């Protein structure tokens, strides 16, 4: 128990430290970066809930982020703007305008409900088949988002989403997600799911209902993704379906894989490292371009480095930086070992 509390305290401490730094610096750009980091953290933790515990790579995660973002947008765009922002909106929603703080949890629940309905039959699949179907699910969700003009304004940008997400809110939800992911991992379902991740045959022979365990994790992951998507929507205020597709998928996946999918610590560390590296590279790119060292503009540095970092991690440390133990467990073990040796 001590070790779980220690893990929660250390990882929560990271987020609080981030908020404190941003508040003290008081620079707008840093505030934006920190808020984005907290939203990414919610998404990465959601992916960890499913992928880390079940061992199945899921590409569909960002699709549920989109479901959350659009749900919250439809519910919160001010009445006088609805005609312009969503001209084809269904009559039922035309008169609806909720507070974003109410719409965000609803968005999470809608994403979870969609995931619950879509995923149950898919959870019987393992390995490559499961990964391919999750990719197909992402494509299906994306296609629906780009074509369901009534609620998404089609492939065009949806604007007029009220701004509601600030750093404190994003950080608060991120800490809640952190505690949720840790609690799930140590719950009965989480433990049995991890058993099935390590050996499906042995888990079946113990009497586990593997598809059902996976399904619970998938629905919880979609809840995280939906809430994260809604927060992001209320932060960025205008977006198109392309925001919830391959680019975002690989960024979130990269964060989790680099940190270590099996642990919540890995999810948090990966998010911080990749966000830090991205922002560093972006400003490097900016200064290279403004200094005009090269005749052409330097673009795509972040993507190249993320790809190389993922390849390097997969070769050198396939489980990521924190492959099997949480930070709290590592510290407690190290302390008790030192005690024994003295």
């Amino acid at each position, binding site marked *: 128990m001590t070790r779980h509390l220690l893990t929660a305290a250390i990882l929560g401490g990271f987020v609080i430290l981030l908020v404190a730094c941003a508040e003290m610096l008081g620079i707008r750009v840093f505030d934006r970066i920190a808020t984005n980091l907290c939203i990414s953290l919610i998404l990465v933790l959601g992916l960890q809930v499913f992928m880390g515990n079940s061992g199945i790579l899921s590409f569909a995660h960002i699709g549920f982020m989109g479901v959350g973002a659009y749900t919250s947008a439809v519910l919160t765009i001010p009445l006088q703007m609805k005609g312009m922002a969503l001209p084809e909106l269904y009559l039922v929603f035309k008169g609806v305008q909720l507070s974003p703080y109410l719409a965000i949890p609803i968005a999470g629940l809608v994403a979870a409900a969609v995931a619950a309905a879509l995923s149950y039959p898919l959870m019987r699949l393992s390995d490559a088949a499961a990964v391919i179907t999750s990719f197909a699910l992402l494509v299906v969700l994306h296609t629906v988002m780009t074509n369901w003009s009534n609620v998404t304004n089609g492939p065009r940008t949806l604007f007029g989403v009220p701004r509601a997400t600030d750093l404190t809110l994003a950080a608060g939800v991120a800490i809640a997600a952190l505690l949720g992911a840790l609690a799930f991992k140590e719950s009965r379902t989480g433990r049995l799911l*991890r*058993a099935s991740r*390590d*050996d499906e045959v*042995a888990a079946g*022979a*113990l*009497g*586990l209902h593997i598809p059902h365990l996976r399904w619970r994790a998938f629905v919880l992951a979609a809840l995280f993704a939906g809430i994260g998507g809604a927060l992001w929507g209320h932060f960025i205020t205008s977006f198109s379906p392309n925001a919830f597709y391959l680019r975002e998928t690989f960024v979130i996946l990269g964060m989790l894989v680099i940190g270590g999918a099996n642990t919540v610590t890995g999810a948090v560390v990966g998010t911080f490292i990749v966000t830090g590296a991205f922002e560093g590279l972006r400003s490097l790119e900016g200064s290279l371009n403004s200094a005009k060292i090269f005749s052409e503009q330097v673009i795509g540095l972040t993507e190249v480095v993320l790809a190389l970092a993922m390849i390097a991690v997969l070769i050198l440390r396939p489980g990521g930086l924190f492959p099997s*133990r949480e930070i709290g467990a590592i510290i407690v073990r190290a302390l008790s070992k030192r005690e024994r040796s003295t």
Partner: protein
Amino acid sequence: MTGPSDKGASLRVVDVAVEFSGLRALDGVSLTLSPGEIVGLIGPNGSGKTTLINAITGQVPLAGGQVVLGDRPLSGLAPRDIALLGLSRSFQIVRLFNNMTVIENVEAGALAHGHGLRKARAKAEALLDEFGLSARADDLGGNLSYGDKRRVEIARALASDPAFLMLDEPAAGMNEAETETLLHKLSALPASRGLGLLIIDHDMGLIMRLCDRLHVLAFGRTIAEGKAADIRKDPAVIQAYLGSEAGIGAAHA
């Protein structure tokens, strides 16, 4: 969902056949395992011992015959349903949850049968203590020695309070002292837990001392069954098993 529905019932394998793409791996094998007894399953390599355990626990489909627990047919049920009826097993090639700690591995056995987290922890601690694994409780399953892995696997199988336990070469990879300790642990199980034990092993010394009855397979068929002492003298067994008069007696000595 918790434990077997009819404790005290016997496990009967009736005229079971298993085929792998036309090849008969098991042909008309019948065997009975009652609570409180230890039955040894022996035979040369490739005789179908592991396949018989796989057939009982639902890992391979039957081509004929049936497996019955009390008067409940198990044939056709998924491995998980069979496990929930109280049949537990270990694997010939150890299958631990390598990224989980030893205690989490054993807890999984109890959790799978509906126990809560606290109860599962208490059960796991008791089992680790019983198998001398307490010092390893916090190590990852994948980092253990082969002998320790075997013991964790047995402890995990026991955590679900099975009515029948099937062990596939539990002593493989253990040294003599470890084997001796294991022998004492295993021989006490039927009395202390009221379970029936089916055990495959190549260590004839272990098998002869441990088992009440032996069942001998060769080429997927039963060639002998009965008391250990009789089996040792059975000419068909000596012929099939080692192909020489020296036979099992030598292996035992």
